Structures are given as structure tokens and as C-alpha cells.
């Protein structure tokens, strides 16, 4: 090929790459959000097809089974509604008492249900894509906690109009302040380098050497740091190790990150 074509094309390439590399973090996030918006309809379609295929493969249920399931779910629904009502009353009472004692009122969070439409395909990152975005009430700047009824999942990062990326607690960039049930131990929870959603590896760092945590002890979010609300279950202690300067505990996440299908995004606070 003629040098007259190659040299200008290489020069144009270098200039374009240079311009992309010097984008500010804010503009990088905008590019990411734009591309996520472009790809999400395909991910949604693919996820729906995959789900239908899986449901079909798992077999069709008989009418009797469906009726039994329906009955069981109706009872569970009524039970949960009743419990919810009672807890709301207790919450209001708790807040009144906290106020009387001049404690800060505990915030009540609004949850936005979301479906997982994609799992990150890169080797070293632990992320998922959900079908809710800024048009559904998620903050464009991200950093909103994502959880399930079992515990903490992660936080939002890139948010497009109708989809968002969630970085899982198994990723090393997702750091959460946590405390251990029944102790005064507090530390930072983050994923390990080798971790992935199938074999998540999460650790509680910077705890005291004398902590002597026992396997099975629950670890909750402490609520410090401003991103995650307090009291959300993160996982259970698997093993405690004493390092040179501090203690370290490996955790089993409360949420099964491999089979996760639906999550809730904490979108705001209501008093």
C-alpha cells in the first residue's frame, strides 16, 4: 500500500486516540452512558430470549402444580403485606422515640425493582447491567446501592436513560464500610482480584488483630461513607486471618451473585 495513504491514516489515528485519551472523567462517563444506551436494547432482547429458553428447558408445569404454587404465593404475599404493615408502624414508632432521645431519624429508602439484562464479559471486572436508568429515577452520577432481599449486591456506576451498570461487591473497586455482628469491629469490605460472579471472593480489611472472628458471624454495612445505608447484610465470615499490621476476614457474600436475576436499586430517602 502506498505511503501516501498509510502515513496520513496513521497520523489521523494518533490524533483521534490522543483526543479520546485526554477526555475528562465526566466526559468518559458520558461516552460510556451513551454506548450503554445503544447496546441495552440488544441486551434486553437477548436476556428475554435467554430467560424464555431457560423457562422452556426447565419444563412446563402441570395445572395442579401451578394452582398449588399460586395458593402458596398468595398466602406468602398476604403474610408479607401484614408483616410490612406492622414493621411500618414500628418504624414510625422507632423514629418518634429516636427523635424524643434526640437521635438522628433513621431514613427510609425507596426501592426500585430492576432486572439483570447482562453480565460483564471482561475477565477482571465484576459488573452487571440492569434494565433501569435515569428515566426510571436512578441518579445519572451513579453510586446508588443495589440490593436484594438477601443482602447487598453492589452500586450503580454508569447510568444511561434506560439501563445502568452495577459494580458488584465482588469487584475490587466496590468498597463498603462494614461492621461485624456482636462486636465493635469495623472495616472495609472489597472484592479480591481473582473474584468473579461464579466464585466471588470478598474480604473484610483493616480490622483489629485481636478481633478473633468466628465463621458464620454476619457482617453488615455500617452506613458510614454516605453511599450504602446501614444495616444491610453483606455476608458471613468464612475465615479470620491475622496479618502483619491488622486482621483480615474472608467473607461468603449473602447474595448468590451467580444466579442473581432481579435486584432493587435504592433510589432515595423518604422521611
Amino acid at each position, binding site marked *: 500500500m502506498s505511503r501516501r495513504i498509510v502515513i496520513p491514516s*496513521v497520523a489521523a*489515528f494518533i490524533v483521534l486516540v490522543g483526543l479520546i485519551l485526554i477526555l475528562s*472523567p465526566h466526559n468518559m462517563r458520558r*461516552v460510556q452512558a451513551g454506548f450503554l444506551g445503544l447496546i441495552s436494547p440488544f*441486551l434486553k432482547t*437477548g436476556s428475554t430470549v435467554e430467560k424464555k429458553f431457560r423457562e422452556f428447558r426447565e419444563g412446563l408445569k402441570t395445572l395442579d402444580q401451578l394452582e398449588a404454587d399460586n395458593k402458596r404465593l398468595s398466602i406468602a404475599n398476604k403474610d408479607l403485606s401484614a408483616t410490612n404493615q406492622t414493621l411500618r408502624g414500628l418504624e414510625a414508632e422507632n423514629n418518634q422515640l429516636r427523635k424524643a432521645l434526640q437521635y438522628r431519624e433513621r431514613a427510609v429508602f425507596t426501592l426500585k425493582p430492576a432486572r439483570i439484562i447482562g453480565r*460483564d464479559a471482561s*475477565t477482571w471486572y465484576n459488573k452487571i447491567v440492569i434494565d433501569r436508568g435515569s428515566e426510571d429515577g436512578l441518579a445519572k452520577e451513579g453510586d446508588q446501592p443495589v440490593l436484594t432481599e438477601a443482602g447487598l449486591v453492589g452500586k450503580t456506576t454508569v447510568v444511561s436513560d434506560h439501563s445502568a451498570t452495577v459494580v458488584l461487591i465482588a469487584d475490587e*473497586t466496590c468498597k463498603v464500610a462494614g461492621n461485624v455482628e456482636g462486636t465493635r469491629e469495623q472495616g472495609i469490605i472489597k472484592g479480591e482480584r481473582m473474584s468473579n460472579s*461464579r466464585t466471588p471472593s470478598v474480604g473484610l480489611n483493616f480490622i483489629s488483630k485481636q478481633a478473633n472472628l468466628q465463621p458464620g458471624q454476619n457482617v453488615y454495612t455500617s452506613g458510614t461513607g454516605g453511599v450504602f445505608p446501614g444495616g444491610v447484610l453483606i455476608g458471613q465470615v468464612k475465615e479470620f486471618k491475622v496479618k502483619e499490621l491488622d486482621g483480615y476476614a474472608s467473607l461468603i457474600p449473602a447474595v448468590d451473585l451467580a444466579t442473581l436475576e432481579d435486584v432493587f436499586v435504592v433510589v432515595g430517602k423518604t422521611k
Partner: protein
Amino acid sequence: MRFFALLCVAMFAGLVGQHFIGPLPPYGARVLLLPVIMFYGALALPVPGMLALALCGGLMWDALHVQVILPEENSVEVALGWSIVLYAVLGTLMSGFRPLFQRGRWEIHCLLSGVCTSVIVLAEYLMRTFRADPDNPVVLIFNQEIWWRIGGAGMIAAMLSPLFFFALNYLAFLVGHDPQPARKGRATT
């Protein structure tokens, strides 16, 4: 031009498809389709086309996967665009084997495609390691798990390459582009 557009669409489809293939046991090696298509493009297109393809592929990859913004420092872990550089360098390496490919040979290119895919995974690992936590010292871990993930992705790519090269060659003919003009029995006298 039509062939270039076709490769861009194929890379986009590969990127979407990758989301539905989970990490493979035992150590979570990934099936990476976009790099395989990109490396085929590096063989089938001249240098300017290869660079344009690296730009599209790298940008798509980074926009979806690679760089993470660390909110505390408002800094980026791996900046948008690094994959473009990586793809262009590896694409140039593949381009060096283009004359052989044009004569109808595929074997070494498929193997090289696997090696280059492993290099991408290794480079991502190094970039993450050196940029991940500015407060802590850099700790490079190279255990069996890490090597499996790097090598596994390459092995899978090398195994998938013949299939992709064949399918993309076929599509190239359909859009009127001959990626192997010097193949035996095809060369003009």
C-alpha cells in the same frame, strides 16, 4: 467500505453475544469474541482499515468494559482509549502476517489470534494492577488462577478463530470483498 461496516456490525454483535456467555470453569476464563473479529479484520483489511477497526473495537470495548471511574478521587482507573492502542499494536503485528493470509494460509493466524487475545487479557490485568488502588503498594499476583484466565481466554479464541475466519471470509465474498486474492487457483495470470 461495505466490508468494514460489516466487520463493525460483527464486532458489535460479538460484544453483545459475550454478555450471555458466562465465565468458564474451573477458573473463570472468558470467551472473547470481539478481539477474534478484530484480528480477522487486521488480516483482511489494509493498514488504514485495520487502524479504523482498532479504533471502533477498542472504543466499544472500553466504553462497556474496561475503564472504571473512582468516585472518591474523580479519577479513572484505566482511561477510555487504552484498548484502541492495544488493538492497534496487536493488529499491526497481525498485519505482518497478511501476505501469508492472502495466499490462503490460516493456521498461524488462528494461533496468533489466540496469543494476541491472551496479551489483551494480560495487559488489562497489568493496567488494573498498576492503577487500581493508589493508596496501596502494587502487588502483582501470578498464580495458577490468573494464568488460567489469561491463557484460557487465548486458547478459546484460538479454537474459535477458524470458525470465525471461515464465516467472515464467506461474508466478505457476499459483500464483494476478496480477503485472499493470492490464494492458489484464484490468482490471476
